[in-house]
């Protein structure tokens, strides 16, 4: 299995605090792997290191074998990594279609001079981009709303628009930062189904940060658990559920013994 993302010994410090401490992460191609951990465990920092927002202090990140740790974010995005944000950061003044069109920006070859004279290449490229954008909007279920400015869209629609924008640059790796945050159960199920459909129809590797355990356990092929910047466990959802250290990380020191008692009763209290 080829590793889409290979992070080896990645460390990132902010002044005295080490947010991410020698983490090794392998994200197999075509899989949905997610990173979980308590608040402040360094999930978003690791995410930002992968997407180039931070330059890791030490260690290496490779994307399909190609080192990307020092590159600027737009170069990393050109290699085919796209991401969404924990708190939605859309281009508010622009309409939904334009947000998606901006996503395709680095795929388009036409320069500003061609734009002035509307050369045929420019015209076709714009039309193709527009069609792709409209098709993407239909795909994420925003077909009727393409002309509304982003700040007018409802919360769920804004989340999906952000994903549509990320998909616009047809990435090989999609980084989703808490896609279901702030969603009611019905929307969460829709989003989970959507992510699964995404992985199957478009064979994109997906790296996920999520707090909602049911979503994580339901769709991830591989889970990595971070705690205080260090990786404390990695593996299939089933292994993670029973791993001592993960429970302690989540429920505190004595919890491991307690959960062992309940395990015998085959009820999964810990993850209601």
């Amino acid at each position, binding site marked *: 299995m080829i590793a889409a993302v290979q992070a080896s010994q990645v460390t990132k410090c902010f002044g005295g605090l080490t947010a991410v401490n020698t983490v090794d992460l392998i994200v197999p191609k075509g899989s949905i792997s997610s990173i979980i951990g308590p608040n402040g465990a360094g999930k978003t920092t690791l995410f930002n290191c992968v*997407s180039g927002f931070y330059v890791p202090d030490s260690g290496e990140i490779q994307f399909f074998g190609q080192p990307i740790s020092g590159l600027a*974010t737009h170069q990393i*995005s050109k290699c085919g990594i796209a991401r969404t944000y924990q708190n939605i950061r859309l*281009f508010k003044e622009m309409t939904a279609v334009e947000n998606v069109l901006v996503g395709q*920006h680095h795929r388009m070859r036409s*320069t*500003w001079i061609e734009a*002035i004279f509307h050369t045929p290449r420019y015209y076709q490229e714009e039309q193709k981009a527009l069609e792709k954008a409209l098709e993407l909007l239909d795909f994420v279920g925003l077909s009727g709303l*393409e*002309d509304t400015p982003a700040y007018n869209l409802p919360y769920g629609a804004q989340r999906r628009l952000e994903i549509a924008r990320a998909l616009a640059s047809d990435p090989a790796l999609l980084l989703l930062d808490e896609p279901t945050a702030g969603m009611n159960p019905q929307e969460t199920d829709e989003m989970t189904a959507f992510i699964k459909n995404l992985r199957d129809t478009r064979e994109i590797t997906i790296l996920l940060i999520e707090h909602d355990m049911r979503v994580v356990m339901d769709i991830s092929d591989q889970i990595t658990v971070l705690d205080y910047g260090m990786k404390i466990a990695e593996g299939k959802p089933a292994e993670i559920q029973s791993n001592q250290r993960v429970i302690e990380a989540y429920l505190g020191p004595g919890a491991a013994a307690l959960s062992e008692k309940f395990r015998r009763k085959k009820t999964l209290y810990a993850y209601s």
Partner: protein
Amino acid sequence: MKTSLTKGLRSGIVFGIVFIFLMLIGFINVGADMVGDISSASAASGAGGRLPVGDLLIVIAVFGVFCGIAARSKSEEVQWWSALLGGLTAGITAGLLMGVAIWLVGSLSLDGVDFRTYLPSLNPASIQYLTFYSYPQSAGLTYLMYMAIFSVAGAALAWLLSFRDWLAKSWNSCKTGLGGWFEKKDVSRIFSNQWLMIVVFLAAGILLYFLPLAWGSYWNYIMGTVAIYILLGLGLNIIVGYSGQLVLGYVAFFATGAYTFALLTAPTPHGIEMNLWLAVGLSILVSTLTGLLLGLPILNLRGDYLAIVTLGFGEIVRILIRSDLLTSLTNGPKGVTSVGQPNLFGSPFSDVNFMHLLMLLVLIGLFIAKRLKDSNTGRAWIAIREDQTVAQATGINTFKHKILALLLGAAFAGLAGALFASRNQFTGPEDFTLMVSVNVLCIVIVGGMGSLPGVVLGAFVLKGIPELLREMADYRLLVFGALLVVMMIVRPEGLWPARRVRFKRSHADPDRQDAVEVEV
């Protein structure tokens, strides 16, 4: 009851102080003359040099009415008598203030105090005029009485106006009626169907051709300056309006453009006297290079840091042009004289031909800016303006695009500078002060950030109004400054705010024929 009293008191004080201020700067006399000109009945005012007192009374009356309205405007559903009371208090307080001031000034100037060492516009003649050529005490009382009466009238008017039923309805209905008519004739609706657009453009073209012929040389010159400032506005609009970089030193590019053209075509300092159109091209190139020179080291700056650095750069260019260091190159503070003027089939450019050339270039500029705005680069710029980090993360090379915006803006400024120098046939360092960059920034923001019609409107307003206010003589800039403040409060989003372009859905979904509007 109490609220209308305090409101009346406050508005009274405010209007009193404003009147005293206007009196001290002599604006009341100018106001009275204007009233005199309008009524023009009392044109023959030569009776012993005594100006018609009636005009002054009209000015005070108008003042009183506004004071009454202001005292009444915001308070909610109140009986008529407390409204009138509010108006009365406002009138009395304002009248008291004005009366006492006039009485003080009048009596002091009667026993020989000369205010003019400290307040020059209070010359004895105007003081007598303000005290109705009579005793200061009686003048003070007349002020008090007038203000009281008229502000009560104003309060009554305001109260009536806010009278809900038939009066307000009729007013609103005619407003909507008018609005309705406008809706049908909505400007952007015209653009929808093809034929109407062509007709409109043709009509505009013919109008634009014939207008300069009808204008005298003065209006041609003013409209020429407006056209040059539109070009500058288009350039700065790309930098500030699209890509959101606040540049306060835009005059640097304008100056380089003008000086390059002047030095290349003027006989005096270097005598190169190059062909004019080549000189225009070179001046655009030189100012773009200055843009590059400025842009490369500082583009990782943001917000106000970028503003002050570019302001500094503008000042550096201005000082260098004037300095002894470069006198051999730029002829120092004397400026460059007899700059070349283009000639049309031999005969030198008359101001009408110049106006046509400027209009042509403005149209080309608008066309380029429009195409850029809707292009892939345009969207990248606006993304950078919205949120630079996310824009970079979605694959936009922000450094490249910001430099591109700066260079395009500099090119526009270079062209405008060359035209400016050749039109005046002279260019000196005093033309390129900080106020030019400030004016162009005002044009872009007052017009509406990132909107092309906004730049055109802004240029008309920012350059047109000071000329229209020329009759106000010395009060020209005072009113202009006040107007800027009021305009920003009344309409912060600009005269013609930018509206995103709506897209056609013809191919993706043939059966859904949305109303399609392409906003200029």
